[in-house]
Each structure stands twice: as structure tokens, then as C-alpha cells.
């Protein structure tokens, strides 16, 4: 079985490009060009140079000794939190801004949930001197205030999404509508492995630097390229896709995807798509999707804005359906507690999204000799107010 996209844009039964005709020319232009542009030596060189000198890659693969002792297994942290702007999101935005330039676009739009992707997009737009508009749900604007300020300082215009649940899903709708209205000069930098083909594949390729580095770093530290497990949180699934990418076809590497259960899977306030979703169409992609029996997309809930999405990238739907990936869902409370544990055991304050991944260590047992790589997708600065409120600090 293949875990990579086929020529029609599908991962198994998932993916495709379910878009209105208005978006056909844009996505078709991208589809026809993205692979050849990514292969161009000038593109590769600029991408790698920016990742190195601007983003600060490679990010360390850090052996977490105290955590390893506590959970009785070998735990490595892939430090995506140390990237410029504080999360993995920038790997993708650096790639896509270069892509946009190659395609001759002079205006960028993006959606954002936690604000990390918005900040990463605003950052590369500032770097390149390109106009930037970021759509963000009104609810998220309130709960991620520091990132809103960052985007503004970086020169981006932040437009509130006022429809629906006013979170990530609605911000994505607004960005897509903007693209329909500006089909010629604008490139849409999607922030995860979601959306119509070729976005899921393109974003996964830009993020695949994570697993590429894990391989060389693990070889140095453990004398082998492949860990026994790679663990990542999944909102849309981009940090996970990047962390899994070079291990997908190697069945010896266990893949663990961690979703947000919110207040609990059965509470009606959850974002655990693999548990609660059915096959459907969201944002141009056929994937697992939380919806009513009638096909209306339902409002997800998670304490973490970055995981608060009713769908999941088509790659992950395929990993779930095919059994290649092990899916675990983690509640708000479990995630917050795990975040604090990481702070106090390793001196690292994680993003609440990433805290979800760490929470599985309390329930999923590993062998003492297992090498478990945890993708630490982002740092917790943006979540300080949430941590303060939650722990009454």
C-alpha cells in the first residue's frame, strides 16, 4: 500500500480537489507547476538556505533524559519549537512564499487558528516585501491575542472571520472566498496538509524536512535511522505529516497520531476527527469530517486553537482507515497536565497543541528499549494566558 499521493491527488479513497470552478484555474496552475518548481536547483537552494540561516534549521533532536526515566522508554524531542516564530509552521510558509514568487503572485492570503501559521505567513511576507492578509476566527482572535499583535507588527492585515463558529474552519472559508474573488494575483498559503490537491502533498513535502533531519540525527545518536515510534499531534496534520513523511513506507516505524478530545469524545465538545468523523468533503478535500447525519459540518471544540478543526488532512484519514497509524485522543485536562509536566521535567514550555502529544505518555506503554520520537511542534509563549487561567498561576 502507498501512503503517498497518487497522480489524481488521492491517498487511498481520500483527497482530490472538490472545488468550485472559480478555483479551478488557481489550483490547476499550482498542480501543474509545484513539483517541477520544487525540483528547480535555484528553488531548492533558496529554500534550504532560508531554512538554515533564517529559520534556524536543523532543529535539535534532544534526548529527554528525565522524561525517559519517568516513562521507562527512550524519549527524543524533535525541537520544532526552536524554529523562528516558534513552531513548525514556518517550514511550510518559507516554501510557499518561494512558490508564490515563482508563480508571479504579488498578494498572499492565509487562514490561521492558533495564530502560529498567521505569524509564520506574515513573517515570510515581511521578509519578501509582499502584501499579506490573514483570516482568523473572531473567537481565536480573542484567545490568541499575542499572535494577533505579532501579525500586525509584521505588517499583515488580520481580518476577523465572523461566520459559523468563528474559528479555524470559518477562517479557512473566508480565505477561500478571498481567493475566489482574487484569482489572478493572489496565492493562498494554506497552513496544513488540508485543502484541495495539490496542497496536502505540497505542504507535506515542505514539512518533510522534519523527518529528514530525524533520520540523520538519530543515526548519530542511536546508530540507526529509524525510531520505533514517531508521535505527533494532529490538527490538520502538517507537523505530523512532516514528522512521519520519510517513515511512512517503513512498517517498522510505528506512527502515532494524537487528536484533541476536548472535554471528552462523548461530550459534544471535541475535535477528535478520527473517532467522530465520517467521510465527507471539507475545504475541497474528501476526508474524515465531523458532521451531522445531514452533512452539515459541526463545530469542533478544543482548548487548543490549533487543533480546533472538524476535519483532518486526507493523508491522515488514509493512515487511520488503513490502520497504518495509531490514533489516540487526549482531553483538554490531560493535555494541560502533560504540558506542565514537560515544563517541570525538561524546562520546556510547549504549545498546548504539542502538549496533547506528550499526554499519551501517561497512557500508552512503550518498551524500555523503544526509541520514541516526540514531535514538539511549537513553544508555549502564545498560550501563556491559557496556562495562567487554567492553572491559576
Amino acid at each position, binding site marked *: 500500500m502507498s501512503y503517498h499521493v497518487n497522480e489524481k491527488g488521492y491517498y487511498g479513497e481520500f483527497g482530490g480537489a472538490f472545488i*468550485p*470552478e*472559480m478555483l479551478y*484555474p488557481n489550483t490547476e496552475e499550482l498542480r501543474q507547476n509545484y513539483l517541477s518548481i520544487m525540483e528547480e536547483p535555484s528553488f531548492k537552494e533558496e529554500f534550504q538556505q532560508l531554512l538554515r540561516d533564517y529559520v534556524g534549521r536543523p532543529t535539535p533532536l534532544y534526548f529527554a533524559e528525565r522524561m525517559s526515566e519517568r516513562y521507562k522508554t527512550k524519549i527524543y524531542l524533535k525541537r520544532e519549537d526552536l524554529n523562528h516564530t516558534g513552531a513548525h509552521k514556518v517550514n511550510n510558509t518559507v516554501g510557499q512564499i518561494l512558490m508564490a514568487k515563482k508563480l508571479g503572485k504579488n498578494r498572499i492570503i492565509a487562514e490561521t487558528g492558533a495564530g502560529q501559521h498567521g505569524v509564520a505567513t506574515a513573517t515570510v511576507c515581511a521578509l519578501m516585501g509582499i502584501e499579506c492578509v490573514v483570516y482568523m476566527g473572531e473567537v481565536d482572535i480573542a484567545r490568541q491575542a499575542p499572535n494577533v499583535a505579532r501579525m500586525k507588527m509584521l505588517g499583515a492585515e488580520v481580518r476577523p472571520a465572523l*461566520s459559523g463558529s468563528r474559528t479555524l474552519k470559518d477562517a479557512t472559508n473566508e480565505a477561500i472566498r478571498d481567493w475566489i474573488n482574487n484569482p489572478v494575483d493572489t496565492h493562498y498559503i494554506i497552513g496544513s496538509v488540508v485543502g484541495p490537491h495539490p496542497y496536502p502533498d505540497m505542504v507535506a513535502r515542505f514539512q518533510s524536512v522534519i523527518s529528514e533531519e530525524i533520520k540523520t540525527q538519530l543515526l548519530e545518536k542511536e546508530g540507526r535511522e529509524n525510531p520505533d515510534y514517531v508521535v505527533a499531534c494532529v490538527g490538520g496534520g502538517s507537523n505530523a505529516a512532516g514528522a512521519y513523511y520519510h517513515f511512512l513506507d517503513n512498517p517498522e516505524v510505528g506512527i502515532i497520531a494524537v487528536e484533541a478530545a476536548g472535554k471528552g469524545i462523548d461530550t459534544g465538545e471535541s475535535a477528535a476527527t478520527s473517532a467522530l468523523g465520517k467521510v*465527507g*468533503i*471539507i*475545504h475541497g478535500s474528501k476526508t474524515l469530517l465531523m458532521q451531522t447525519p445531514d452533512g452539515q459540518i459541526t463545530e469542533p471544540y478544543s482548548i487548543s486553537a490549533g487543533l480546533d478543526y472538524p476535519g483532518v488532512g486526507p493523508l491522515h484519514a488514509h493512515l487511520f482507515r488503513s490502520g497504518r497509524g495509531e490514533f489516540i485522543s487526549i482531553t483538554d485536562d490531560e493535555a494541560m497536565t502533560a504540558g506542565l509536566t514537560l515544563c517541570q521535567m525538561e524546562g520546556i514550555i510547549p504549545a498546548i497543541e504539542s502538549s496533547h502529544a506528550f499526554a499519551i505518555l501517561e497512557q500508552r506503554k512503550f518498551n524500555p528499549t523503544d526509541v520514541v520520537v516526540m514531535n514538539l511542534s511549537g513553544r508555549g509563549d502564545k498560550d501563556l494566558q491559557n496556562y495562567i487561567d487554567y492553572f491559576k498561576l
Partner: protein
Amino acid sequence: MIKNRINQKLKEDKKLLSIYFTAGYPKLTDTVKIIEDLEKNGVDMIEIGLPFSDPLADGPTIQDSSTHALNNGMNTDLLFEQLQNIRETVSIPLVMMGYFNPVFQYGVEAFCKKCQEIGIDGIILPDLPLDVYQDEYEQTFKKYGLINVFLITPQTSDERIRMIDKVSEGFIYMVSSASTTGAKTGFGNEQQTYFERIAELDLKNPQIVGFGISNKATFDQATKNAKGAIIGSAFIKHLTQHGTEKIDGFVRGIR
């Protein structure tokens, strides 16, 4: 060639006025009354909007009407129930318009079958792409005598328009400009050039222009070259202001 009310209507020697409304708006039970009144006042064809939670191709007016309709309790089963006897009173072509996900959940075949039972003539699903339709659903639509209507936009290449023309069996929905739905006050030179460019392609299917038609001026301009035009947001705004009253006045204002 599928023979149904749409093809008959397209043969009539006049410019066609088509109206879109969102089922379940402004009130849950307005559906049948709106359809009957539109026909009574000389409207040629009606698009019945099946509301969706995330209408990507729609501007604020239709978004709001969809949200209201869903909050009112509209759903696919209920809409079919309301339309059960519509052919006892209405004879103009009726087209279902919506997004693919609700149809996919209902089951495409079950949806088409139900449409045929009721007397629906066509379906417009903007986010069901041409290739998926051809690969997976064309046979089903045809089996139940339904015309699938495709969209083209000012950015659609001539080559793709010809492909769409080949697959289409009724009319082509010509989106007036690169935009989401919403009423405009007038069309500029750019639209005029586009309207003429499409007319010159001499397609096998007649074209009906939609998006941005709001009044007599835009209707006349759009139908100078095209066979007809569709009014959506402007009619929804009328419903917001007047409920189901004064539909006669609205239609008379257009022609």
C-alpha cells in the same frame, strides 16, 4: 439527449429569468409558496437552494440565509417532503442547487432518485468537479433524467469551456465575474468583453448568467448575449425585507 422541462424551456423564444432562493428561508415552511408565486409571476425557472453550513462560493447574503434556514430546521429530508406534491401546482423547470457534502451523505443515487420522483429537472453542485462527475456520477444522473449544470467563469480557458460544453446537456451556468455570489449594481467593460467572448465560442449549450444580477439593468446587460440570467442574492434580500409578500413587484421590476 435528456428530454426534460429545462430543454423545453430553453427552446422558447425569449430571455429566461431564473430565480434562486434558499429553502427554509425566511421561514421554514415558505418553500412551496415562494415557488408557486414565482411561477405565477412569470419566472421561467427556479433554483432551490439546499442550505449548507459552509457555503464556500457564496457571499454574505446567501451565507446568512443558509445559516437561518439551518437554524429554522431545514434539512434534505424535510425539503423533499415539502416538495412532494410540487408538480401538482408548478410546471416550470426546477433545479436543486447546493454543495456536494449534504448530497454525498444522503447518497448520490438516493438523492437523484428522490429528485426524479418529485419532478426536479436538474442539479447544480458547484463543488462537484467535472472529472469526479464523469468518473463516478454521470450514469446515475442520467438514469434519473437529471441535467447536471456546470459553471464557467471569466478565468475558464476556452479549451475547458469546450470540454464542459461537451459534457453538458442543458445549459451552462456562466458566472459573471471572478467572485462569490452577491448582488452588484452594474457590470463593467470586463464583463461585457467576457459575455461577448463566450457568445463567439458558439457553444452547443445555451448560457445562463448568474452571480451579480440584481435588477433590470444587469439582467438586460447579461442577457444581451446569453439566453437568460439567474438572480439570487437580490431576491434573498427582497425576502429579508418583505417576507413572501410582493414577489409580483420584485419580478415585474426585472422585466
